[in-house]
């Protein structure tokens, strides 16, 4: 496929929207994505709560780069490229910790936790022109945050993060309204797993409500067996139908009336009778702080939010922060966390984590079947010569404002933005 190859085909007259399956396995497509998406868009790095104190750090892969996400002695948040300027070895090899400096195991160059070079063994041999200031750990040109979510950008000319996030900001705000102080934290425990599929399949899957009834039938049984009302109206795909929403710059979300139980704050039998009063109290706090209408939005809607290109925040059975990075066209690495209000009691935190595992994660009652579906799709693309296209046409005869969550209008939002960037 060449520079001007086309993958996304939209036929408004026929209400058809097709994506060529080469978009999911071509090395050339991934090369273009790395260059134009992962080098130019705002990419999620981490959350303030993961590095609360000066000296706190953690190491992770961001957009294919080894990143040292840290808070320096002055409390400033940094995303240092975790690579020694001398010979390129990974400098900090621990998962997380607290340190005033980082020491390279190869030749012993030592860096302050703001990335500046502190010391070099045998510095005399470099002569008098040696300029320490040229040997800091590299930093991406841009690092900005919105409400404790930190993103980096390798493009110095990119629009600022707040502008980039566009309508997604309102949906982040809606999640954070769960907390009386507006603050939530990443909870201990990381789910890190591979999916043998193209990364864009997880974008689609995260907001695809058309698949739930079929792929997640055993989860629906689990809920129904537990006394949750999972009945549907004839012809409908879910107990309650919501919307697919466009948020600008390729961001999108589902926005659904809740039917499945939420730690904040819609009780279901799965939580146990003893939790009923506490969940009602959480709801009452929301109402007194936010008013009836906003409290209802916070407590009784489920939203799966995609921040273009590779961050998903699901606010459903619990809150997940999940991002994913392509390793090759047919393999992605997924990292998933739970997010909870900082004020939660021990009981509420335990309930949130229990609720998380009803659905999400590699041992949950639903996510493993998503993984199976994505891997089955990827396997099917081997037949692309005779079966070249994915169909993403549901609801195309209706305007965006009328798209259900079980339609595919919001998934087309992602693909239109992807087309703008990759097919330019």
């Amino acid at each position, binding site marked *: 496929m060449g520079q001007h190859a086309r993958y996304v085909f939209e036929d408004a007259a026929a209400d058809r929207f097709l994506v060529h399956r080469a978009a999911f396995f071509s090395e050339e497509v991934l090369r273009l994505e790395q260059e134009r998406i992962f080098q130019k868009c705002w990419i999620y790095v981490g959350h303030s709560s993961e590095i609360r104190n000066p000296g706190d750090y953690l190491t992770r892969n961001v957009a294919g780069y080894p990143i040292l996400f840290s808070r320096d002695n002055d409390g400033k948040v940094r995303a240092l490229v975790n690579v020694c300027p001398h010979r390129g070895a990974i400098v900090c090899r621990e998962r997380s910790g607290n340190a005033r400096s980082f020491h390279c195991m190869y030749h012993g160059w030592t860096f302050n936790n703001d990335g500046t070079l502190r010391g070099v063994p045998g510095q005399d041999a470099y002569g008098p022109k040696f300029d320490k200031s040229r040997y800091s750990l590299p930093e991406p040109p841009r690092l900005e945050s919105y409400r404790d979510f930190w993103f980096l950008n390798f493009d110095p000319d990119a629009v600022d993060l707040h502008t980039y996030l566009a309508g997604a900001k309102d949906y982040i705000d809606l999640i954070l309204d769960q907390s009386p102080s507006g603050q939530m934290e990443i909870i201990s425990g990381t789910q890190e797993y591979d999916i*043998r599929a193209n990364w864009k399949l997880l974008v689609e899957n995260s907001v695809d409500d058309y698949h739930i009834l079929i792929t997640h039938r055993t989860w629906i049984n689990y809920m129904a067996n537990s006394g949750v009302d999972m009945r549907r109206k004839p012809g409908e795909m879910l107990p309650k139908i919501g919307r697919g929403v466009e948020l600008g710059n390729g961001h999108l979300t589902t926005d659904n009336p809740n039917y499945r139980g939420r730690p904040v704050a819609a009780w279901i039998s799965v939580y146990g009778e003893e939790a009923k009063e506490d969940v009602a109290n959480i709801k009452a706090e929301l109402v007194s702080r936010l008013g009836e209408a906003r409290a209802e939005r916070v407590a009784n809607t489920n939203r799966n939010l995609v921040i273009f290109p590779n961050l998903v925040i699901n606010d459903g059975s619990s809150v997940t922060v999940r991002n994913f990075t392509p390793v090759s066209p047919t393999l992605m690495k997924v990292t998933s*966390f739970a997010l909870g209000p900082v004020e939660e009691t021990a009981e509420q935190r335990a309930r949130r984590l229990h609720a998380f595992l009803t659905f999400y994660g590699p041992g949950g009652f639903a996510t493993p079947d998503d993984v199976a579906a994505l891997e089955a799709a990827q396997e099917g693309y081997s037949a692309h010569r005779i079966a070249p296209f994915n169909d993403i046409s549901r609801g195309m005869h209706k305007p965006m404002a009328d798209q259900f969550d079980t339609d595919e209008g919001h998934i087309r939002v992602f693909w239109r933005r992807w087309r703008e960037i990759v097919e330019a």
Partner: protein
Amino acid sequence: MNDPAHYDPANEALRREVEWLFYREAELLDAWKLDEWRALLTEDASYFVPPNDKPHGDHNNTLFIVADDHVRLHERIVRLKDPNCHSEYPPSRTRRFISNVRVTPASGNEWLARANFIVHRNRRNSDVRIFTGEYINRLVRLNGALKIHERRAILDAEELGAMGAVSFIL
């Protein structure tokens, strides 16, 4: 029996009984005889797979891979027997190797039984996925039989990574 640093022949009968229980579990799980396997556990049993980065964490304040109380464990078995459990249909072919069986007294009338495991999970059109780690189980004796009161499978890997999911009973 209280000092794991010294061999105590008096411990041998119990160790063999615990070993038999681990082997019996492995046999039933590999054969997908999940109801028979469930009968090796107490009614109120729980089952945990901690996250790779917090292998000794507490499920009440740490996000686990699996944290089933007896209610959810029952539902997990219902799910695994359902052909709509797509990640395990057709069921994976698994093979468990259990070794390094140790047993020490724990609090009350419980024993702490530990064993190393290697579990191979085979599926059509997929590479074999290998899970290695340690079981740390709490056992009690009910009506003469040792039963598993709490079952904890701790993975060695730094991340779940290529193992992908814990969609079967590990």
